[in-house]
């Protein structure tokens, strides 16, 4: 019964996590086209990104093909995502706190992948242990290593961030109660997880067995000979599930919205070409009704943007 509850909880949290991401991403993507607001360097500018140049440096640029570089984007995105390159460059003190936290979470994502593979392997009847075959051995040791590294880094990072927000006046002033709660949530979850493995499930085999059940939808009762789940591991699973569902509902959803902030805004330099998709989108938004009240606009909710732009300041004479 207890295992069934845990299983349902994990399925539900994954569902909330994915649904929240899809919902928010679709909502952002459906917002109307906006004016260009790029900021250089734009990473995909082939041959120019290194110094921040753009295709606008080219004489008669509109007559030439635009060259965009995916490799250029990856060269910026990978160090930014993995190592928080921007924080390293511009806020080094903070990086020493923020990097372990974020990198710890990436490592924990890797742990989940290893546990899934381990679960599939176990469910298929193979052994994942120090005495198993090569793959079983590799999975066993890698899970061990990645698991403790991720939990340790994440805990150190979240504690360091929490301490800074609590004791540094500049940070404390801008930290809302919810931010303290969020960091506290991470600290407690990671501390419980670390304790669970250090005390009750040192080689993650209990958790791997749970993942095998997750994959095979195995709701059957636990046999008396199996010790899993211990109370601590169960608490670990409950907290981690709640945290997973909670993250995309908060401003921590920046882990995926950052994609829009870079690709739709900062690097969005696509010109408006006659007869193209952008022109069609602009033509549509120019029909939106305007209701700004200042005397030089006098939007009545009926005039659209074309009316406003072509009316001029003559209206002020009225």
């Amino acid at each position, binding site marked *: 019964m207890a295992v069934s509850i845990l299983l349902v909880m994990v399925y539900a949290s994954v569902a909330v996590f994915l649904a929240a991401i899809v919902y928010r991403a679709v909502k952002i993507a459906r917002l109307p086209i906006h004016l260009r607001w790029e900021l250089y360097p734009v990473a995909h500018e082939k041959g120019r990104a290194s110094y921040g140049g753009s295709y606008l440096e080219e004489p008669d640029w509109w007559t030439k093909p635009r060259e965009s570089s995916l490799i250029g984007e990856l060269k910026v995105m990978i160090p930014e995502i993995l190592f928080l390159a*921007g924080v390293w460059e511009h806020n080094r003190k903070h990086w020493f706190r923020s990097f372990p936290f974020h990198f710890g979470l990436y490592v924990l994502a890797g742990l989940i992948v290893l546990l899934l593979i381990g679960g599939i392997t176990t469910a298929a009847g193979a052994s994942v242990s120090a005495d198993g075959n090569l793959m079983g051995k590799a999975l066993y040791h890698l899970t061990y290593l990645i698991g403790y590294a991720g939990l340790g880094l994440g805990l150190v990072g979240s504690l360091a961030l929490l301490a800074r927000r609590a004791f540094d006046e500049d940070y404390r002033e801008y930290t809302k109660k919810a931010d303290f709660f969020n960091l506290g949530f991470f600290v407690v979850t990671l501390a419980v997880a670390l304790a669970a493995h250090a005390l009750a499930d040192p080689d993650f085999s209990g958790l791997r067995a749970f993942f095998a059940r997750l994959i095979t939808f195995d709701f059957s009762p636990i046999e008396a000979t199996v010790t899993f789940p211990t109370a601590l591991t169960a608490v670990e699973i409950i907290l981690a599930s709640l945290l997973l569902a909670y993250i995309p509902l908060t401003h921590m959803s920046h882990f995926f919205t950052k994609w829009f902030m870079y690709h739709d805004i900062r690097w969005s330099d696509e010109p408006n070409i*006659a007869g193209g998709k952008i022109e069609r989108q602009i033509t549509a938004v120019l029909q939106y009704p305007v209701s700004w009240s200042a005397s030089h606009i006098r939007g009545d909710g009926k005039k659209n943007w074309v009316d406003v732009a072509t009316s001029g300041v003559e209206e002020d004479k009225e």
Partner: protein
Amino acid sequence: MTKQRITIEDISKPSPKLAELRKEDFKPLPPPLDRPDATPDFPPLSEKAEEQYETSLDDTLAVSIPKPKNKQEEDELVAKFLSGLQKLFTKENNWTFLQPLLLSMEHCATCHTCSDSCHIYEASGRNPIYRPAYRSEVFRRLYKKYVKSKGGLLQAWRDGEIELNWTTVARLAELAYRCNLCRRCAQTCPIGVDNGLIGHEIRKLFSQELGIAAKELHEHGSVLQLKVGSSTGMNAVVVKDNVEFIDEDVSEKTGMTITTPWDKEGADILLLHNAGEILSWPMNPGAFAVIFESAGLSWTMSSELVAYDGINYGLWYDDAQFARVALKHAEIAKKLKVKKIVLGECGHAHKALTVIADRVLTGDLNIPRESCMVTLEEIISSGRIKVDPERNDFPVTLHDPCNLVRLMGIVEPQRRILRKIAPRFREMEPHGVHNYCCGGGSGFAIMSGHNFADWRNQISGRKKLEQILNAFKDELDPSIKKFVCTPCSNCKGQLRDLFNYYDLWEKHSILYDGLVELIVNCMSDVEPGFIEWEMH
């Protein structure tokens, strides 16, 4: 002095001043301006100004909102602000920036990475209200309380406390004009939050809903431009007269016969100058004419209303005014049947018409636009004009206008020109897309009401002053004439004020001017001595 502690919630608490400006707090300048008396005491606002206007933010005024006469008037303004706040987050009223604004509202992690990138925050001695995130956080809390969640039990716990009253509204209006909108902070944000954009949107809310904006930008700026033709107040007759004088002067100086073409239908290029050049730096349009004529370009200027002034102040505070001016520029280019518009040395005019208006102009109004930096480089690299770099044998550094460089990516053409024509060219540090604003960005260069010019010269321009002094640190001797190449009209206005304020020309022979003046100064076919070494 102890550091001022000012909380986000303090913005709503009535007090004579939220923050004080004390020169001893400001960032020290490098030699030779490292003496305490090199920066004058920050002058207080006049008693009349204190009496008449809402002055409770800091010790200066940019917008000058009259004090409400009674509680009812206060309440009306707060209600209007709230109505504008709600409109700002609707797609109908703000499709122009809704997506970037919402993302910046939702995802700030308050990591303060942006703080040290801001020249105003740094120069002020880290005054808490000039932290880029301060105004954004105030606005974010208002948005979350009054637009997004409309209260609720968890709202303050989740989003922080804020109170909306007249004090908040009045201070926020002023605070939107303590940022140059240079977006250097956005460049450093690891998430992509844009405090510059938030400042821009606050200005828009006030202008588009409450009709509150800096007079120099609205009444004497875009309104005047649309009515008379130029924010300088010049009508077409005056402009043509002035340019005729310029042609005569330039012809005399260069030994060439220069006549600026007007309203030439079918020309390849429509050249758009900031009309301020014609009045304040007439040798700039003159130098353009010399270069374009010498290179044999087919070009014209327009004497139509609005088209002889390439400025577009709406860029800084109002989407409607922006669109109106951009549309006029495009309509006139279409009427003249030119192949392209070339923007003269004006950073914001570049960005306004090339980048921002790109998603306003459709169909046959979408005339190609090109930066003069690109046109000039093509002329020089193709050898269509001959240059003698020895004529520019003096120290030269380059100021990068934010609009041209960080916000458009036009970085190298002007440098390739300088490397060719200025043998003693050296960079400022940092430069290119990581440059610092001159301190006059977003309209500040033309704003000097009350003691705002002192604020510009002591705070927003301080970092640029430091950069210029450092660029010439081994050649500060007044016997060596030095040149700050400044290819932007508004930046030139700011540097002019800055140089006068600190006597840089008198004491250290540091002068500024545009790129075209430097080009003509070394043209082999031109009489030597085009640059006049005197403060102007």
